[in-house]
């Protein structure tokens, strides 16, 4: 394990940024975001960013391909957004887990090469948590916030930043940083576990085995009743991956791009033949069933939620996956 005095953090960031683009969580609590590091930029005081690090690997909008249409002829023109090596520092354990979940979606055959390129180019430096937010529940999904994964795991106390490389990419990065010296981090303070207010989620009933029972559960109507269908939960979610493919006529070429979409929206499944999810009840149910039942059913029981708590903070009607899990998990038989 390596270490670097906290007073040297700016030098460390500068050294990383000299080699490739570096993103760090910066800004005030309500607007904290992963931003390209610049001289003098400080780490945010907020525990986590408003939007997750997913954006760097699966951006909200990205070009797929261009077409030039001339009469009856079509020309396909490569128009991939350029991707270059980058490092993202300060990813929390919950957000780091989200990449395992997204990888299983995008890297299975046939591989999504847009996502894969960014995953290959990106080095993830995680940062261990010492204090939970009141909306945190990562441990419910078996995530240890004090021992995050990633290419490099980091711990910070008042004096030092400790760094441990977990992958070859991580080793390479650390070997290039001259200000690091050998040193072991003090034992992690595991009492953070006890301070997670929402850690006890009754998740035993979820997963593929009880799919139809949970789907037909009558309390969905009450849970979904106030949902506005705004899609804020899907927007801030580190594991939501539904997307739309749209086109824009630049006047010269047709730009085909991919952008985030939301299963919470009424036109998401709308067809000329009808609407398989006609009311907000079906759309609301789809989102939570996907995270807690459908995804685990096809991925060895792994849930599609990491307990980051962003949806709890952002939902305008204070409905969220914790309330859904508690209501369904406790009352189904």
């Amino acid at each position, binding site marked *: 394990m390596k270490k670097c005095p906290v007073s040297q953090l700016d030098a460390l960031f500068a050294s990383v940024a000299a080699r490739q683009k570096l993103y760090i969580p910066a800004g005030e609590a309500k607007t904290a975001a992963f931003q390209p590091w610049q001289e003098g930029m400080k780490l945010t005081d907020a525990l986590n960013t408003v939007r997750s690090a997913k954006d760097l690997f699966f951006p909200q909008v990205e070009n797929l391909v261009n*077409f030039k249409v001339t009469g009856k002829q079509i020309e396909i023109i490569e128009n991939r957004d350029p991707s270059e090596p980058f490092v993202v520092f300060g990813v929390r354990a919950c957000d780091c887990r989200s990449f395992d979940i997204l990888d299983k979606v995008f890297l299975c055959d046939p591989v999504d090469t847009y996502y894969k390129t960014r995953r290959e180019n990106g080095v993830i430096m995680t940062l261990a948590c010492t204090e939970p937010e009141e909306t945190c529940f990562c441990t419910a999904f078996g995530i240890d916030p004090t021992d995050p994964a990633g290419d490099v795991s980091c711990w910070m106390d008042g004096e030092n930043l400790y760094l441990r490389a977990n992958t070859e990419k991580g080793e390479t990065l650390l070997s290039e940083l001259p200000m690091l010296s050998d040193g072991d981090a003090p034992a992690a303070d595991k009492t953070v576990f006890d301070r997670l207010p929402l850690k006890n989620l009754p998740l035993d009933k979820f997963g593929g085995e009880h*799919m139809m029972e949970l789907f037909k559960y009558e309390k969905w109507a009450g849970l979904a009743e106030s949902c506005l269908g705004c899609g804020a939960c899907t927007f801030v979610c580190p594991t939501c991956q539904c997307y739309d493919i749209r086109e824009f006529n630049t006047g010269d070429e047709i730009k085909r791009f991919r952008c985030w979409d939301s299963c919470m929206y009424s036109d998401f499944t*709308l067809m000329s*033949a009808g609407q398989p999810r006609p009311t907000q009840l079906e759309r609301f149910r789809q989102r939570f*069933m*996907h995270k807690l039942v459908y995804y685990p*059913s096809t991925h060895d029981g792994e849930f599609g939620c990491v307990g980051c708590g962003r949806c709890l903070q952002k939902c305008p009607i204070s409905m969220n996956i914790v309330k859904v899990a508690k209501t369904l998990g406790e009352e189904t038989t």
Partner: protein
Amino acid sequence: MRQDPLIPMLAVVTDIRQDTPDVKTFRVVGLDGKKPLIHIPGQCAMLSIPGVGEALFSITSSPTNEEYLEFSIKKCGCVTDWLHAMEPGQQVTLRGPYGNGFPVDTDFAGKDLVFVAGGIGLAPLRSVINYVRHFRDRYGSVDIVYGSRSKADLVDYQEILDEWCKEDGISVHLTIDNPQPDWDGHVGFVPNYVKELGFDTGKTVIMCGPPIMIKFTLAGLMEQGFPRDNIYTTLELRMKCALGRCGRCNIGDKFVCKDGPVFRLDQLDQLPDEY
């Protein structure tokens, strides 16, 4: 250039046949003039015209056709309106094939088959029917029940008359919803006709049509005692990627684009009814 599954290939529409007032059949080949992809009956492909949109269509031609692909498409939206307005020689983009297709070489082998189709629902079944006709000795008896609103709305009517009806061992049962002067065949809805025909319950049923037809035909088949694991249908939901990622065609733990579109009834029983 095709480094990503979302990047299509180019193809050209060489022939357009007006099948019914709102259905046209498009013949598609690659830019080299050859069949652009290999499929199995029941699989689909993404067709698009850049600037208008991309949509998933079932491939109606049989894999045994080695020259081209055909798509029978009903005019009912943005992309299909455009396709209906275009002329032969137009290039389109194509990607696929997608989906599981019908188990023509496994579960269907040696079986007596009953095809039940309504309206444009014949499109995916035509691929299976012509595949079965090509390898006729691999299958038992073949019955085809096909209905539409009127005689003019029967898709592939000429092929049905000239080829299917004339073949030994294939019984074609056509019906239209209402009587009309130039029609001396059966009149009535598909579900009732299937019931009247009284097929042996040991036969394998392959069904595609509007939801209302499926619903009532099924009720009739259940009444007659057909086992649910011997009835097949093919679903269609909105799709953007056809790779199981965009999220639209998700039903329970399945994606229609990659786990379907072909499902057995007993498989559908295990899934939420959001289709």
